[in-house]
């Protein structure tokens, strides 16, 4: 598998896994309106994931379509960021995970519109508009919870501390990233750190939350080495397709 294919799969898998996680909220959100809000985020991310998977399949040239890539790869063949496979937890955990992710994805898409791959650039242009709204949603909730009651502040501060170590991976360059950037189709993850920090620090200040201390541990979900949570998620997501291959509406 070429670095280009792998790079696009990382983006696709990250979206797909987070879309699945957000989908788990349907029917369980704290209010009907939030149920729809989270489902909307999920569907935006799923739409982008489908386009990205299709593009990865084209670049690979082995005839694998979006369904085959989504439903017939094993855990170690998934290249999503480890942050997005973390469990939903309570609503505050989900908000923090979403906020850290949205701030990253908006910066990514803003840079990726200049990709030499026309399909990727088009997906990024569409995705940037969606990511801007997602960040508004998750950032708004982070401020409400952080600057809310003593309990909401304490709980969301704990969520932030728990999820923060997973953000190192977002800005860690490896050989795949460097090759994709050198080929002119990808963006170096480390280049996304400054705009992300600006966005995150701004909202954290609004939310009266302190930025957690830096830790040096890096996760490698994007290289197929995952936390213990992804296997269960994939088992649920893929079970229908594996039981009924090729089933359609």
């Amino acid at each position, binding site marked *: 598998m070429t670095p280009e294919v792998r790079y696009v799969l990382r983006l696709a898998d990250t979206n797909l896994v987070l879309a699945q996680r957000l989908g788990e909220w349907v029917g369980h959100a*704290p*209010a*009907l*309106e939030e149920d729809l809000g989270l489902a*909307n985020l999920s569907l935006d991310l799923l739409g982008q994931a489908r386009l990205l998977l299709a593009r990865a399949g084209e670049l690979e040239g082995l005839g694998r379509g979006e369904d085959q890539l989504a439903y017939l790869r094993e855990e170690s063949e998934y290249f999503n960021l480890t942050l997005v496979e973390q469990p939903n937890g309570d609503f505050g955990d989900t908000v923090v995970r979403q906020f850290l992710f949205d701030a990253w994805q908006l910066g990514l898409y803003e840079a990726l519109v200049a990709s030499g791959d026309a399909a990727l650039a088009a997906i990024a242009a569409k995705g940037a508009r969606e990511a801007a709204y997602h960040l*508004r949603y998750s950032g*708004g909730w982070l401020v409400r919870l952080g600057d809310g009651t003593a309990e909401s502040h304490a709980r969301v501060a704990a969520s932030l501390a728990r999820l923060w170590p997973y953000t190192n991976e977002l800005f860690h360059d490896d050989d795949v990233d460097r090759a994709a950037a050198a080929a002119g189709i990808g963006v170096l993850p480390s280049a996304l750190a400054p705009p992300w920090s600006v966005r995150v620090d701004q909202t954290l200040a609004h939310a009266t939350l302190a930025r957690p201390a830096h830790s040096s541990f890096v996760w490698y979900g994007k290289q197929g080495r995952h936390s213990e949570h992804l296997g269960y998620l994939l088992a649920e997501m893929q079970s229908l397709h594996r039981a009924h291959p090729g089933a359609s509406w």
Partner: protein
Amino acid sequence: MNKEQDWPLYEIFIRAKSGLDHKHVGSVHATDAAMALEHARDLYTRRQEGVSIWAVRSADIVASDPAESDAFFEPARDKIYRHPTFYDIPDEVKTL
């Protein structure tokens, strides 16, 4: 949590396209005005129903009392001369 008690209700008005007026489409619960707009966007513009949203606290709307509708509206009933129905409209005029 009792959402009805904790989250105020907002009435939502959507403008379908520029030039038309905002029409009432329903209501959402939200903790504040910004969230009301987001909820309205997610609930009522999923299928491109609008280009503009207004949100108004339901509590801020002053409404006429249905029990008083006779006193309010009955006096207009026999004043048909207020309706512009006594004019001959030329065939060429299509949009009156």
